[in-house]
């Protein structure tokens, strides 16, 4: 496997302080018995204790293991090992250290077990159909229950709902979770806090309630839907399709160009969205999730042209996708695929809403846009229109690399705002 770049190592660090600690350890001094193979890097690091820590990194996962007590993940030792490896300090070694080998074997076995289990259950279609039936029954009951709750809500009015304690929303959300409708549950919980946080709460809540009604109505009509719409409503209620189900369906080989990527962290779940474009203009988003203490997949550099097969989830464009294998062949390009205007993106957003009214996020490869001041805020603007930047956008980096000149920027349009993810300059692509 090609060695990672320094920035790739940085990206897997849980926080800046871990990385800083790792830099201090990334000297040959404390390390013994280091080595690497195609898929593994390992070594022993002398810490403050008597026994050195045994550190192994599975580069494919990536996965990390260290005998130190740190709760950071990956810990500074694993990061330091990766730094040394990325700098070429660690040599390929023919013999894998015993502790690393043992761990890798365990991992391989664990990885194989569920697959065997799945194939073991597969031959019983009757049992599977029964389980599916049970699930759908539970979901249907949950949706019906939710619609009653919604009817009660609007009968009493939004103003009265706002005076309800948070438990009012939380209880409704918990019932949705029980009914295996987690995405709806998440929306209800979010509304429970937004209704007090927002100034225009009445308009917000009216919109949300309307959307919940739309989703629940579409769910109840699901037998009349085509596969694409069915997939969309499944996402909306939170009936996830497992990656195993998708893996072999609708595969499209590369090259895929990385348009930009973003990481979010709501405290419970980290998410990484990587937007990819194919040469004919198809755009997909690869989503990775990781819970607290877990590591997200290695981020792909914006502007890289990846030689990789991508499996696409069912649904309307832009579709969700997954990498079938770790991407390779990161040849950089600097011409932003699918450059377009704000007006065009805006029209596309309206078309998308016409098809799937609850979807909001849209990729936006904008050509020749500038950042323009708007009071103390900034907007992105081209000849056709302008949009405010999303909260937390890296305004100053964008200004620094553009210098006020028009540049190509890839980003996401969501709820009437633009979130810049990568600047495509003439000679380089700067991920934000």
């Amino acid at each position, binding site marked *: 496997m090609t060695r990672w770049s320094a920035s790739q190592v940085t990206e897997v660090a849980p926080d800046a302080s871990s990385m800083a600690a790792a830099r201090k350890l990334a000297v040959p001094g404390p390390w013994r018995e280091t080595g690497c193979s195609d898929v593994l890097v390992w070594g022993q690091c002398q810490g403050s204790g008597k026994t050195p820590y045994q550190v192994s990194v599975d580069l494919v996962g990536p996965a990390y293991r260290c005998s130190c007590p740190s709760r950071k993940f990956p810990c500074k030792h694993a990061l330091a090992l990766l730094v040394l490896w990325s700098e070429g300090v660690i040599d390929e070694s023919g013999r894998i250290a015993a502790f690393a080998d043992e761990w890798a074997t365990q991992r391989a076995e664990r990885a194989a077990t569920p697959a065997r289990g799945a194939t073991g259950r597969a031959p019983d279609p009757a049992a599977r159909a029964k389980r599916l039936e049970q699930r759908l029954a539970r979901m249907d009951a949950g949706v019906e229950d939710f619609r009653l709750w919604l009817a009660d809500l*609007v009968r009493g*009015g939004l103003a009265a709902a706002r005076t309800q304690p948070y438990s009012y929303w939380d209880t409704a959300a918990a019932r949705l979770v029980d009914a295996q409708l987690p995405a709806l549950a998440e929306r209800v919980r979010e509304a429970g806090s937004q209704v007090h946080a927002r100034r225009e709460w009445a308009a917000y809540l009216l919109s949300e309630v309307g959307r919940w009604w739309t989703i629940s109505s579409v769910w109840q009509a699901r037998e009349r839907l085509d596969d694409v719409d069915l997939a969309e409503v499944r996402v909306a209620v939170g009936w996830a399709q497992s990656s195993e189900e998708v893996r072999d369906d609708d595969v499209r080989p590369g090259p895929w160009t990385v348009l930009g990527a973003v990481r979010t962290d709501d405290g419970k779940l980290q998410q990484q969205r990587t937007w990819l474009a194919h040469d004919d203009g198809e755009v997909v988003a690869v989503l990775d999730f990781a819970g607290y203490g877990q590591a997200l997949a290695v981020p792909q550099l914006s502007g890289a042209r990846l030689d990789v097969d991508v499996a696409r989830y069912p649904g309307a464009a832009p579709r969700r996708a997954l990498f079938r294998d770790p991407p390779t062949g990161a040849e950089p390009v600097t011409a932003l695929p699918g450059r377009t205007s704000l007006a065009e993106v805006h029209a596309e957003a309206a078309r998308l809403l016409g098809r799937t009214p609850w979807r909001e996020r849209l990729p936006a490869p904008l050509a020749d846009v500038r950042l323009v001041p708007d009071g103390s805020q900034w907007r992105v603007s081209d000849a056709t229109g302008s*949009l405010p930047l999303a909260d937390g956008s890296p305004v100053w980096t964008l200004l620094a690399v553009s210098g006020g000149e028009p540049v190509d920027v890839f980003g996401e349009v969501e709820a009437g705002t633009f979130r810049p993810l990568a600047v495509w300059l003439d000679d380089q692509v700067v991920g934000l």
Partner: protein
Amino acid sequence: MSSVDQWLADVATSALVGSARREPPPAPDVLALDAADEPAEHRLLASAAVADALTRAGATLPPPSDAVLAAAAEVRPPTGDRATQLLTLLLTQSPVSRQARDELVVEWLRLADEAGLRVPWHLLPVLLDFAAGRRAVAEALGAQLGERGRWLVGLNEAWSDLLGDDAAEPGSAVELDWVEAWPTMSSAEAVTAFALGRRADPAAARDLLEAQWSTVSAKLRADAVRALGPGLSAADEPLLERALDDRAKSVREAAAAMLDRLPGSARAARMADRLRRLVQVRGTLVRHLEVDVPDTPDEAAVRDGLTAPARGVALAPTVWLSQVVRAAPLSTWTDITGRSPAATLKMVRDADVLGWITEAVLDRRDTDWAVACVDHGIPDQRLLWLLPEERRARLLTDWVTGSTAGRDLRGLLTQAPRPWPDDLGRAVLTRIQGEKADASLGHAAAPLLPVALGPRLAPEINAALSRLPEDAGHLRRALTETLQLHAFRTSLTEAFR
């Protein structure tokens, strides 16, 4: 308002108060919503669903906005990959301690400037944020920011102070018309303005004070006299003589203290005269100095600053002696003995007198006498800063090597210019390792070591690392960091080569 807009507003009202109290409005025909048979709350929910989709999909794109003036084209090329990487490291995941990091960033900026290069654009925001809280880093900013950096600073208020012209820096600003404005200022303003003005133009400040002498308050006169230090010269003597006759005691004392620092003045000559009458050379075999205490001072002596005798208060005559010694020129002593300062000091037997002489040396900042005092073994560590650099390092090294008791080595080492001379570094390293390691010196030195030890000491540092006391984790960390820092410095220099 179109029928759809009216309908949207009615839906919102109905939803706010509830469908039980306000019947949901019928949808306009253009929307083709057919739900008349449904119960009211369902009609309201369906209306909300349509309203949501309609509002979002029907929103118009805001018009284009006016752009800011774009940045000028860059003249300097950006720094190379390696140098850029090092700055990124320093700013985002520093491998070194906070203090060392600031110094390295300043060093990076200096090297970039000397090489005629500029900071790569994408690093400007993080660099400017970093500099905004650190004066030393902000002062190192300049041409290496490039046109883009200057442009960016102008757009962000949080950075607007970073590139101020030198004259506009807070703390050193002198208003051009301060002389005219001075009489009208509040007394606090006036003191600050005077001190600043004195720094900028000593003669103008003196003339102003002379002109305004009789109109300003005694407190302001005293404060102004105390502020005469910068640029003090013989030209100030007439004003100071006048101040000796002032009504206010505080003004007289301030003037006497200023005159102590002018050994060529008439008052110094008068003091020399008083001193000469008190000092006799005695002894035939071993010549030494005998110093008498003065008589109760007369009016002239009191005018020159000796404490006035007060009725009913018994004042030790040594008080007057100390005042005479501190005010007389040091040359009075060598004139009396006919010998060098060092030989003269040997002839002084009285420890108190030696102490007052030392104070006089410190007041005058006299280098020759400071060397003599140190040679004589006077332990006052303030003398150190009067010594020539090389001499100072040697002395400090001796102090570190010898007994550290009673000396504020931490203070001394902190103030010593960095990097330390190698001998000093070596001496400190020797004292903090092995069985007889000096724990308190170790604690004092640990935070300084990374920035103070020179790169040539690498072998000694490595040796010391293996001989540190068991419990000296702070020193182990400090020395490890020192090595890292040296490695970093080396890569920094190489990156700009």
